[in-house]
């Protein structure tokens, strides 16, 4: 997919999953064997192994999440677990932390076998876990969050405060015990989570996708913290699918694919490309060369769109964007830089403070959501459970959702159930929604099939524009490629598509042009055929110098570090 630029492996910011499998999915034997021979077996004997996992298997109804997982973690090292989304990493982590119980297999901590029935057991065994979604009570202070459940260790007053301050300075975490968590930024919250596990005497720290929400400076700070922890003799298990980060900080890497351990490697002896292939199981795909379908008819146009925020900083500032018929415009950016607000403004859920949005020339800036949808704008929401589906309603009613004023769902003021049901059958067939019938509730479907239903529904009604916000988030691999095909189909049919995604592969593979959004402004335009992920990554994080702050913005305390 990417040509190796320069020596030492290309920098792939993330590899979600295989983009377009060529020639089936059998792994390239030669590549795999050559990588595995590069494994350096652990240098020391069992008594310096902090964690040994053997044969872990976990089944859920209908799916085997973990199968025969085996690996060892040396004490005092940073050990990375790599795998795509859906490979089984989070189930494994839940088992290691006692939230789930394995069906088969053993876990040994410092040579002793342990039975983890609950997080307290894991804590007692010296394991601490920092979840991807922070487990913090916003309205309580840092002190209260840290001592919760461990009040016996140092009390809940002055003694605890002193201990927190001690740990904070020892590991360079910069945590203030009396701050209210709600006031803290993401990086600070993560440090509180790390401090929480250190406070409880954890010697083995598991970090679940810790860099998912961080900007690069914060990632560097985190890695510095991890190196400090290592220096003090602690062991870190680091779960991630971001290969460059893994390669830069890990001492050992274990790759998990489809629920099972595929390989354990030494980062010094593999490059990112080989690692990616291990994770994905086949050769990396190459971009499709298709004919461009971009016309010069503008279907959606935004001019000078500004959306004021609550603290003096604009959420969106002077956005100028054009989408042509037959074009996919991709928006790249770290989450929280205005993508969600951009979508809300276009869809009419928020009214912009300034500027105009025009649909085929008509000003829709102050139109209601319903009117905009009726005018032919389809919307695939970022969070389908909250914005796209009625989970307890049958599929055919979900087909109506979002379009309950349009044919074939309605006849006059009444719902035309018969036509809606018939059309739902059509969508199920055409969009390959795997379901026993259209009468099951949406909640019974898998994420991928839910999304396919939504895509089918929206594409049926979108006659002009399709807004796709993180369309393959939380979707299994098979459904993902179907959805990609569908989005390309939309473009082929002459729609203008706005694609917002955190998956750079998705963006690069689908878009005709890529814009980067940073702090509410569009800061760069890139051609997906020639862009490198370094360029994109730099623009997304402002490292390329394009992050002039919006005027009147107060200094961000995070920047001052």
């Amino acid at each position, binding site marked *: 997919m990417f040509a190796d630029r320069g020596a030492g492996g290309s920098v792939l910011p993330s590899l979600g999953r295989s983009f377009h499998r060529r020639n089936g999915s059998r792994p390239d034997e030669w590549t795999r064997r050559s990588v595995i021979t590069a494994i350096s077996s652990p240098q020391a004997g069992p008594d310096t192994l902090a964690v040994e996992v053997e044969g872990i298997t976990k089944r859920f109804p209908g799916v085997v999440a973990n199968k025969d997982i085996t690996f060892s973690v040396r004490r005092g090292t940073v050990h990375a677990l790599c795998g795509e989304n859906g490979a089984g990493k989070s189930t494994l982590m839940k088992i290691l932390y006692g939230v789930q119980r394995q069906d088969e297999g053993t876990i040994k901590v410092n040579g002793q076998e342990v039975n983890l029935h609950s997080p307290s057991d894991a804590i007692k065994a010296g394991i601490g876990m920092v979840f991807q979604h922070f*487990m913090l009570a916003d*309205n309580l202070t840092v002190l209260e969050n840290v001592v919760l459940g461990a009040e016996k260790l140092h009390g809940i007053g002055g003694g605890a405060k002193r201990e927190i301050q001690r740990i904070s300075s020892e590991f360079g975490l910069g945590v203030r015990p009396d701050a209210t968590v709600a006031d803290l930024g993401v990086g600070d919250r993560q440090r509180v989570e790390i401090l929480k596990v250190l406070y409880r005497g954890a010697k083995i720290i598991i970090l679940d996708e810790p860099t998912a929400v961080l900007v690069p400076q914060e990632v560097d700070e985190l890695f510095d913290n991890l190196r400090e922890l290592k220096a003090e003799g602690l062991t870190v298990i680091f779960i991630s699918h971001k290969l460059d980060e893994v390669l830069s900080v890990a001492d050992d890497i274990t790759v998990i694919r489809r629920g099972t351990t595929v390989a354990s490697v030494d980062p010094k002896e593999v490059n990112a490309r080989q690692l990616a292939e291990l994770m994905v199981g086949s050769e990396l795909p190459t971009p499709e060369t298709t004919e461009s379908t971009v016309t010069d008819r503008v279907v959606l146009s935004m001019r000078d769109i500004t959306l004021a925020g609550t603290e003096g900083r604009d959420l969106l500032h002077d956005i100028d964007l054009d989408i042509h018929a037959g074009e996919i415009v991709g928006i790249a950016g770290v989450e929280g830089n205005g993508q969600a607000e951009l979508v809300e403004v276009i869809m009419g859920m928020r009214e912009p403070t300034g500027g105009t949005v025009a649909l085929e020339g008509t000003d829709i800036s102050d139109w209601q959501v319903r009117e905009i949808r009726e005018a032919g704008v389809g919307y695939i929401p970022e969070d389908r459970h909250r914005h796209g589906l009625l989970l307890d309603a049958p599929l055919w009613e979900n087909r109506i959702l979002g379009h309950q004023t349009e044919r074939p769902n309605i006849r006059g003021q009444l719902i035309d159930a018969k036509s809606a049901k018939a059309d739902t059958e059509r969508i199920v067939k055409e969009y390959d929604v795997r379901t026993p019938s259209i009468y099951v509730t949406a909640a019974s479907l898998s994420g991928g099939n839910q999304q396919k239903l939504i895509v089918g529904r929206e594409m049926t009604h979108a006659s002009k524009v399709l807004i796709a916000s993180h369309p393959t988030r939380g979707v299994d691999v098979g459904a993902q490629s179907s959805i990609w095909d569908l989005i390309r189909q939309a473009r082929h049919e002459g729609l203008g598509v706005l694609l917002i995604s955190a998956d750079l592969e998705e963006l690069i593979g689908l878009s005709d042009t890529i814009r980067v959004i940073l702090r509410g402004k569009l800061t760069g335009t890139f051609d997906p055929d020639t862009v490198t992920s370094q360029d994109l990554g730099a623009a997304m994080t402002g490292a390329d110098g394009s992050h002039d702050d919006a005027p009147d913005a107060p200094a961000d305390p995070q920047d001052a570090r």
Partner: protein
Amino acid sequence: MSTATPTRRAEVKEKQASWLANPYARWGLLAFGGLVILSLLRVVTGANDLDSSGAIAAAFGLAVPIALAGLGGLWSERAGVVNIGLEGMMILGTWSSAFCAYHYGPWMGILGGAIGGLVGGLIHAIATVYFGVDHIVSGVALNIIGLGIAKYLASRFFTNLPGGGPTQSPPLPQPPSLSVPGIGDPLLSLERQHIFLISDFAGILRGLTTNVSVLTLITLALFVASWWALWKTAFGLRLRSVGESPAAAESLGVNVYKYKFIAVLASGALAGLGGAFLTLVASNLFRDGQTGGRGYIGLAAMIFGNWRPGGLLAGSALFGYTDAIRLRGGGGVHAILLLVAVILLLVGLWQLRKGRMLQGAGSLVVSALVAWWFFATDTVPGELAGTLPYVTTLLVLAFASQRLRMPAADGQIYRKGGH
């Protein structure tokens, strides 16, 4: 990693906060302001009963059941369980306290009231925590069942007692009352002189220190104990965490179900205690319909107090005061009309200044109407005066609801495993 910027900002913030940040200073200022306004109103309208010691004592007394109900609500909601069933628990408390007091004396009556409410709390806890029923549905059902149980048991047990009947108990022994010795009479004479501010202060002080029931003192002790337990102990931290983020609490090994259970039981007991107050102190018997919606007013006081005991006390005092003014007649309610008109006038002007034209105009219009009502009449008819506590509750909620911060996971139906 420098800490320069955060420190500087903190410094600036601290300077601004200084003495206003001290909650005691703030409350003190508020109390003094309230005193001044009351005194002014009394002098202007001549309604001397506005802050007479009698009125204050009555207000104090009526505030207690509201405060107890509100404290019960606070315990429950701090653990994330909405408790609409406080009224039903209070009703159970009225019956059980009457029953126990009649047969075993006033102290057992107090205990019995708490136990009666506790039973109600147990039902609510099992339904919401264990079975995952919607909190409000369970609360409403509890009110229905509590009313039924109390009515049934009352007619079953009180009908054949001397002085009793199917809807009321015979007269009950009352728990003792205390007074601060020596200052009662001098304060009374000071009060009678109607000097601006001084007499008002004397009246209020006398009302607060004469004939205070033991149960009132117990209530105050419970407030202090609750504050200490919830904010100064590990137990309280865990309980509050369960109401803020049960997922975080569970991930740290806190038994979420246990703390919710305890909290709801406590809330039932407190509401029951409020019922005991109604039967043993506010009156001296049990009567059908005695609670009169105080369970709900208690909830409003809790919201007004931003889910903290101090604010809750203030809210209860306010509601108790409006209740007392209404019951005592004497032109108090009528005088309040003037106060309301003035407040609305100020609010309207302030809204206009902020540019909210429609709201400001609305407030001014209502202010004018209320003022006209005040000047056009001499008294407020009994039936309408009877709605004063409820109208006050509505108004307070209308103006206060949006500025408040309830426990983050309040009302969330929590199932183990985080779903």
